[in-house]
């Protein structure tokens, strides 16, 4: 179980020597990802979802709040003591091209973490070789033909599988997949997604999926939770299918309305929500963060709404005027 409470992160931009501008990447985020579970962070780029993922994977520090991994709070620990905890959480990067060292063969890439593991557990060298072949087989690659290769000799899809295999060498508890398929060929994407799903089912690895594509998030785990993040705040959180089918926050609704409709297979939702302006026009830091773009803004929006459950809605949301709207496209066959 990995939980976080009140995570705050502020970046200081060093654009100007005199006046360093502060960017509030995360404004007090809570999350909880159970063992073997799935969670997805969705939102526009710059909303803080990647920063949050990196904090969870131990690659980024945070200013306030607490990350707890299997009952151990991280903030009280020294970096050296934190390391074994954060190692249980492995990041799968977006770009499989830069995630593998081009000067090292796949064998070398897998060998390094495995030999560390072998040293810690007192296993033999032959175990390393066996385990390397095993993790490659787990991700659907043929060890015999892949081990001696360099990354440039593999396709993008194969590289991403190697990246996942490398993460598996340390027996992780959770994989953090940050836009893990956006740079992969379309016909191969589903294969990678299916692999992550399969690893969840077979190894009990939990998956945190960070994306702007809601449909892929759903594919990884429709039993998981969806966190919709807007400008560093979770504005809607609930079971995947609930949030997708019955979103209540206008921002979630506009995100879902923006998903292309496969005309010929689907019909568009009846009440699409289009934000009044684009994200870069919104820099108001008081009140509801979405208010300046929200077509449904009301009198109370000068205040900052908190994430909460209100009557009539199963999911948590941060909106004073929640309302269900039919925004997503539905298959024609359903009519």
């Amino acid at each position, binding site marked *: 179980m990995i939980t976080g409470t009140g995570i705050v992160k502020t970046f200081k931009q060093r654009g100007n020597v005199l006046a360093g501008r502060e960017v509030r990447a995360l404004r007090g985020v809570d999350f909880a990802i159970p063992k073997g579970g799935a969670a997805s962070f969705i939102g526009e780029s710059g909303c803080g979802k990647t920063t949050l993922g990196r904090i969870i994977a131990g690659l980024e520090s945070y200013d306030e709040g607490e990350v707890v991994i299997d009952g151990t709070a991280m903030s009280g620990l020294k970096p050296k003591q934190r390391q074994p905890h954060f190692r249980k959480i492995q990041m799968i990067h977006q770009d499989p091209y830069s995630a593998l060292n081009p000067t090292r063969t796949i064998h070398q890439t897998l060998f390094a973490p495995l030999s560390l593991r072998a040293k810690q557990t007192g296993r033999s060298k032959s175990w390393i070789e066996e385990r390397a072949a095993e993790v490659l087989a787990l991700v659907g690659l043929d060890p015999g033909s892949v081990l001696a290769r360099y990354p440039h000799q593999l396709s993008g899809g194969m590289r991403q599988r190697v990246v996942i295999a490398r993460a598996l060498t340390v027996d992780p508890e959770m994989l953090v997949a940050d836009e893990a398929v956006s740079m992969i060929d379309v016909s191969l994407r589903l294969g990678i997604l299916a692999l992550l799903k399969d690893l969840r089912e077979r190894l009990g690895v939990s998956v945190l999926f960070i994306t702007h594509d809601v449909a892929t998030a759903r594919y990884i785990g429709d039993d998981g939770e969806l966190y919709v993040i807007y400008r560093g705040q979770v504005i809607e959180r609930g079971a995947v299918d609930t949030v997708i089918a019955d979103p209540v926050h206008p921002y979630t609704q506009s995100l879902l309305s923006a998903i292309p409709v496969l005309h*010929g297979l689907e019909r568009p939702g009846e009440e699409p929500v289009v934000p009044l302006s684009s994200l870069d026009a919104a820099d108001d830091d008081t009140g509801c963060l979405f208010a300046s773009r929200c077509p449904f803004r009301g009198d109370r929006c000068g205040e900052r709404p908190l994430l909460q459950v209100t009557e009539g809605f199963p999911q948590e949301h941060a909106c004073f005027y929640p309302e269900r709207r039919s925004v997503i496209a539905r298959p024609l066959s359903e009519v």
Partner: protein
Amino acid sequence: MAEQAPGVRIGGLTVVYKTPAGELPAVRDVSLTLEPGSITGIVGESGSGKSTLALSLLNAVQPPGRIAAGTVEIDGLGDVATFTGEELRKARGKHIGYVFQAAQNSLNPLKTVGKQLLDLGRSHGVEDLHGLVREAKELLGRMGLDGARVLDSHQHELSGGMRQRVGIMLALVLNAHLVVLDEPTTALDMITQANILKIVREVHAERGLTTLVITHDIGVVAEVADRLAVMYGGRLVEQGPTREVLGRPRHPYTKGLISAIPRLVGDIDEARALPGRPPTLATVPKEGCVFRERCALRMDVCDTVDPEAVAHGPRIVACHAVTVKEHA
């Protein structure tokens, strides 16, 4: 705006790239007609030849590539494939507007957008530069931007979506009526993408354009295109009206692509991954069907004979299995 939207007829186009292993075709024997005033979408994965095909429209395939055979007839211009030098340079920009892949990064970081606009105008011998700027501001305003501010900005001061709109403006400002958009929404967010696609549709209608959209994302094509063409391994495997192709795909590759898209509702296990992986220039089969390695309907004939593009009503499909079924 007296000019009409031009039609484009690509006939038997083959583009080859010189490699150590000899000249390999990136686009092979592709025939495609863009009706005047239509939006056509070309869908394909990396290495499918879609970008090369788009570049051929401008006769802008860079060495080591070259157009080896075929014609690219554009109304009011002629066969662009035979153009050279000055003739070609003038056609680009003035008649054909091109929004490059990752237009987000294709602006000069050292010059303001306005300066780049003036450079463009001068290089095409535009006399009325004030008129050009006015036109540019109008276009940017049309796309929901503050024209004056954008023209005064450098690339780094604009967001991804804004840069993309600047790219579209630069493609249209010389009054081109044939517009090619290469991956117009890659690396953009959903909301920005929806916004850009809406703009593409509206500008297309208002200015009377013929538009070609190149993308790997079927969703993008589904949103904007009237006609959809699917490329694989340098071949055009299926084309037809968008709704028909999406609703009832014929070619096994099109079918596979569509069923590999995860959906928002329904059973998630309905989504099926395509086996195998797309070919590269070097691994594309020399003879026979390019898709056979990944095809569920593979027959003996597929190994030796490249299926011809056969018209079935408004649909054109290049697949032996489909042809056999239609004639059975």
